């Protein structure tokens, strides 16, 4: 027997350690569940970390109301299959309460106001930590995240004043009203996630795989045609063979042309592709530091 781990086994061992620390150090942690592959992998890891016991975390879905129907169906079936409690935080409710305002203008979306709904949901359900599928390789502001990332009483991240996080000694102590975000798969890359999905045979929403869809071509992006999308004059409507590389709000998740219909084919496609994962996310394009700005406000 060789007493060595390969990279996927080492990343898995690290992620499970982080999940167990989150369980031990916080009163009431939840998993931020979007129905996307990263949060599915985190939930899968949580199931392994606590087996044969049930997943000790509630799944919290921050629902912009602009979902792919496929995601919602998958979400509900997944929660039932994993025997996990699922609760929703609705952006619509924040807008009704007028704590959040619907964006206006041609590129209006509900991405930014999600942060408000997240904080309100955490307060109303009493969660003191939210475990997410964020990865440091996704975006440059995320490259500086800790595994245990502190948020002040207003849910804000202060990147210049992060506490030291050294070896694997995570300090989750906090003052009343403060919270943490926990990122068990911080050290995974997009390719690692897919290779792990392949290895563990994890089910994903059908959106990740190539399918025929009515799309809207807008500048360099391809968006799914839907009633949520505010039409532009220059929009071009067409039927395309596409898949989604990230799944979020329907109005901002860009599709890519692809024939990859299995996990193996997606891995092959990723290895050959020369475009970053969030390169298709309209929300990251507003400025070069838009992710950092949103994180400071309480975004995941």
């Amino acid at each position, binding site marked *: *027997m060789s007493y060595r781990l390969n990279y996927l086994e080492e990343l898995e061992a690290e992620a499970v350690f982080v999940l167990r620390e989150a369980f031990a150090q916080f009163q009431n942690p939840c998993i931020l569940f979007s129905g996307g592959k990263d949060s599915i992998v985190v939930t899968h890891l949580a199931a392994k970390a606590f087996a044969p016991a049930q997943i000790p975390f509630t799944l919290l879905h921050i629902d912009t109301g602009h979902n792919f129907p496929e995601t919602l169906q998958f979400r509900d079936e997944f929660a039932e299959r994993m025997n996990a409690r699922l609760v929703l935080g609705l952006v619509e409710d924040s807008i009704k309460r007028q704590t959040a305002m619907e964006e206006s203008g041609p590129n209006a979306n509900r991405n930014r106001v999600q942060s408000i709904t997240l904080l309100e949901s955490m307060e109303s359900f009493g969660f003191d930590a939210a475990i997410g599928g964020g990865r440091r390789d996704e975006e440059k502001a995320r490259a500086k995240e800790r595994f245990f990332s502190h948020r002040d009483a207003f849910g804000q991240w202060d*990147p210049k004043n992060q506490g030291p996080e050294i070896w694997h000694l995570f300090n989750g102590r906090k003052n009343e009203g403060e919270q943490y975000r926990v990122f068990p798969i911080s050290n995974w890359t997009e390719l690692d996630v897919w290779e792990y999905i392949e290895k563990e045979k994890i089910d994903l929403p059908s959106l990740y795989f190539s399918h025929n869809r009515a799309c809207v071509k807008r500048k360099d992006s391809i968006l799914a045609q839907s009633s949520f999308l505010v039409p532009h004059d220059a929009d071009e409507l067409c039927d395309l063979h596409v898949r989604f590389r990230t799944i979020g709000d329907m109005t901002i998740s860009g599709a890519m042309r692809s024939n990859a219909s299995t996990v193996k084919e997606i891995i092959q496609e990723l290895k050959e592709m020369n*475009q970053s994962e969030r390169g298709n996310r309209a929300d990251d394009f507003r400025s070069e530091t838009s992710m950092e700005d949103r994180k400071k406000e309480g975004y995941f």
Partner: protein
Amino acid sequence: MVEMKDILRFTTAGSVDDGKSTLIGRLLYDSGQIPQDQVDLVRNISIRKGLNEIDLSLFTDGLKDERAQGITIDVAYRYFATEKRKFIIADTPGHLQYTRNMVTGASTANAAIILIDARKGVVEQTRRHSFIASLLQIRHLIVCINKMDLVDYDEKRFHQIVADFQDFSAKLAIVDVQFIPVSALNGDHVVHRSNQMPWYQGATLLYTLEHLSVASEINQIDFRFPVQHPIRVDQGSVQDYRAYAGKIESGIVRVGDEIQVLPGKHVSKVKSIFGMGGKVLEAFAPQSISIELTEDLDVSRGCMLVKSNNQPEELRQITAMLCWMSPQVFIPGRKYILRQTTNEVKALIKSILYVYDMENLKRDESNAALTCNDIARVELQLASPIFADSYRNNKATGSFILIDEQSNQTLAVGMIS
């Protein structure tokens, strides 16, 4: 399809202007790791800044304030992979007031890259960084002598710097040091070999990183298993299940092994081991597992499972190297929480034996204050004993953090001597 590709974690350090971000940018760019859309983005920023060429350092300088100041202010993690290996880079700030970030980046690293500007040679900062790498027990040091293009790729200059470095590094506890002449700006000896320095027969930086041996760094002798929490199930098809979840920090454990539970010192045997793929007969560091014991003992978070014939030391007083990490200064007589593995005890810093003067690395025995970025040797008194090894023998059981009970901040990190 079991790929034996492993992970190398390395940290990078250098003075502010040594070109560290450019070196990492070059490493990622030349090994084809940067997606085209990011290349385009950085090219556009470079043009807007009035530069003729693409500014490679922009690939790693992330946060707003850093862009404005042109310096790196926090540890940033980067990822890339080749056919041989996966790499995790902890890119740490180079200037003095951020010593704490370098300590952070170095804590999980297998190797450290130290950058030297070929025009300036070995400077105070080089000594400081090498000293910290040695303190944190990093086995491999790769000294990149950068900006060789600015000294006409001069062989003599390279050897002079190597000799200067060896003069002082002889005193450090580093197992393996390699020197590579590079130009991050032009890409010489980063990923590709250079035609400019025919006198250099050694490997490129990437080749060196791909071939460092890391397997032997994991201690597979002394079994240490800090318990994160118990898992109990008694319903449905699972009756009376009681196991202890944790990560094996070092060593190997097998079903049937005689185990002692610290601090109670009760003896039991391993009944079963649950790995990530189900029941196994043995497990090893750094796996996350759960262990069931034959006896029903009182085991909770903070306990440690070890073997009866191989035990850590029981310590109520410890001598340690401490790095102060917080703007909140040390208050004599104030009690702190000491966190070692998953265990916490109250602690008091009884005495400061000496503080390193980071300008010249001399020991200052008259200094009784500790402020941010200070490194000192101290004695601590603990409210109850901990079970520990020296940091040299076991990084996981020989390291700790000090937390302030009132602010909840991590104030300092320590390594047990």
